[in-house]
């Protein structure tokens, strides 16, 4: 037990470290100010600029964009290729969801709980890797991936169905006979997924925002244990969202290149988060641990590196705007207009 703890601590210190095991700061961070991703200023701590000086620089850039200042808006056509690439990717993922749900249905019919759990996790993985699409799937998303909290009678609600209804059954030892009908329903819904994914309208803004928000949702709903409470698959689910984000960022990279200094810090943080989750997985013998099995140190490393990544991804939509922010009229101006 002690040996395991020491080994874990050593690995942790190698990568990022936690608490008292890492007295040295990992790296000096670079900060981006406001909506101007091209302005990076060294952190005040240990740097040579005061907070006031930083603020003054940022204000000056805001007033006089000039060369190297505010970015020219992109054209909507610039997004055609990235979105098309993403669409092909998500169709592949949708097909994989369908395949695993079919196996899941077979496992449940055969009463094989172990196989059913494995297929459930695979189906869930591929569904989450759709990432950029699920916000646009509306009712179909609720039918496949809906939680009980939004329903009047919670887990007892007749509308509680889909993946999480089956998850509850499999991980609480419910007899598989009772899961046949939810599995059949899920299979019928998932059959529509590929076509639905193909037809989704994705605006440039939505696509750029997804680069940031897929992982925001993962942090809010998956790492908190809200979304997959019975299987405890929150970490694994977060890594699926990471995969989706990596894909979206990869398709957007040609657009981001040359637009301020967004790409490199985003890629660095993506790689760092990937390295942290991989090391946690290794520490658990190569399998994704349930959320509850993470040590405090592992949790802190995962939460912290995801937080740092999100703070970077936040710059992506701002760097890819297709129109300038228009100043809105004042009440007085609108009143005059009316007269």
């Amino acid at each position, binding site marked *: 037990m002690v040996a395991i703890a020491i080994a874990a601590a050593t690995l942790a210190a190698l990568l990022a470290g936690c608490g008292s095991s890492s007295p040295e700061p990992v790296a000096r961070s670079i900060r981006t100010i*406001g*909506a101007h991703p091209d302005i990076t200023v060294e952190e005040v701590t240990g740097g040579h600029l005061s907070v006031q000086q930083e603020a003054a620089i940022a204000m000056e850039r805001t007033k006089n964009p000039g060369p190297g200042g505010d970015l020219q808006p992109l054209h909507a056509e610039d997004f055609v290729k990235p979105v098309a690439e993403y669409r092909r990717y998500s169709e592949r993922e949708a097909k994989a969801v369908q395949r695993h749900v079919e196996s899941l249905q077979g496992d449940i019919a055969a009463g094989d709980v172990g196989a059913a759990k494995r297929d459930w996790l695979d189906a869930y993985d591929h569904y989450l890797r759709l990432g950029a699409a699920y916000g646009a799937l509306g009712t179909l998303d609720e039918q496949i991936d809906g*939680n009980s*909290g*939004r*329903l*009047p009678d*919670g887990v007892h609600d007749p509308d509680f169905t889909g993946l999480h209804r089956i998850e509850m059954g499999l991980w609480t030892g419910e007899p598989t006979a009772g899961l046949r009908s939810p599995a059949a329903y899920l299979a019928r819904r998932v059959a529509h997924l590929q076509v639905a994914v193909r037809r989704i309208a994705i605006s440039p803004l939505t696509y750029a925002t997804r680069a*940031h*928000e897929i992982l*925001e949702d993962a*942090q*809010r709903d998956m*790492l*908190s*244990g*809200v979304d997959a409470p019975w299987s405890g698959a929150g970490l694994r689910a977060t890594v699926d969202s990471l995969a989706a984000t990596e894909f979206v960022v990869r398709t957007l990279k040609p657009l981001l290149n040359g637009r301020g200094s967004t790409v490199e810090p985003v890629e660095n943080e993506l790689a760092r988060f990937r390295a942290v989750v991989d090391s946690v997985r290794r520490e658990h013998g190569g399998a994704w641990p349930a*959320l509850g099995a993470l040590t405090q140190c592992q*949790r*802190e490393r995962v*939460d*912290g590196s995801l*937080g740092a990544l*999100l*703070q970077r991804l*936040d710059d992506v939509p*701002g760097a890819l705007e297709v129109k300038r*922010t228009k100043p*809105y*009229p*004042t*009440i*007085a*101006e*609108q*009143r005059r*207009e*009316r007269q």
Partner: protein
Amino acid sequence: MSEIDRRSFLKRAGGVGLGGIAAGYGLGAATTANASESEAEMAGRVNAAELADRRDFDGVHQAGILTPAASFATFLALDSICGGRAELMGALQTISSRARELTRGGAFPVEEYDAPPADSGTLGPVIAPDGLTVTIAFGASLFDGRYGLAARKPAHLTAMSAFPHDDLDPARTGGDVLLQIAAGHQDTVAHAVRELARPVRAELAPRWTMAGAVGAQRGPSPHSSRRNHFGFRDGTSDPDVTDPKVMDRLVWAERGGAEPAWTADGTYQVVRTIRMHVEFWDRVGLHEQEEMIGRKRDTGAPLGGTGEFENPRFDLDPRGERIALDAHIRLANPREPATIDQRILRRAWNYSQGLDPAGQLDVGLLFVAFNQNIQRQFTAIQERLNNEPMIDYVTPEGGGYFFAPAAARHPSDWVGSPLFA
């Protein structure tokens, strides 16, 4: 004190809960212990100015409704575990009686030196009123079959059902009785929570509790609304509580019609604990934040306006060029003739309760709406807000619908007595 003495004392103290009108501890009556008496007098002088504000417990309407939001509030939802109606009546009488004493303040008696003291003592030997209000309300579950109250349920009272983006935790939702306990300082509230729960342990079991606070008054005017965890001012467009006609139209239960007579001078209370995902919010550009809300963050003025209380003039902006058509303030209160009767009296406290399992701050808004008809007002507003852009940054996690009846009319009356008459 021998074991037998101790038991007999406890028996006396325990009897208090069922003793009805005379159930109080005699707070404010002369104390006995001589040493603490002079200390009590001194304490009274020191805190007199800051803590002297006193809100009457008895009257027509309960305190804590039209009262401006006190700095601190705790909600304590209780489930009745009473075996019968008489026991429930006794417990409710006790709550009123204790609440009356606490809101009045004074010294408490020290009866037997060996016995557990009658008061926790967390406020010292003299309890200062500190603007304490205790507002008592009943949930729909109290009107089930247990106490023969089903036929007397207020016309618009239901259990709170989930809206599409809610993630309600049943353990933090609903309750038979709700106490809203509010005062000028946190210790006054915490003390009252403890003292109100103590005499009714055998009758009313705590179901959930949440504590919140409003920000300090940081101006620019003494009327400026305080800020929530998103940094925006909260409660700017509340109806005028000093206008009885408006309150009769929006807050107090309708007379006659479907409402049972006992509901007169009461109001429906909606409580929602709304988690705010502040780390996510802090990654949103200011322009987008203001667009979602429809107001400037610094002044609280509607976009394109200059002062917090300026009319946002949606009529001049039908296409949403100034204030987006799905901005929070526009959906919440469109200021159209058809929505005048949907307005609610809003109260809000900010809460902070540690971290969630993902290491994120578990903070949010304890939202309260007092209204005449939940379906006509709160629900109608909420349905408009279902798909507002801000919904990504918040998760309603608990709360409930309650009915806060009229105040106790006089010191020997109790809140809820007409329900049992």
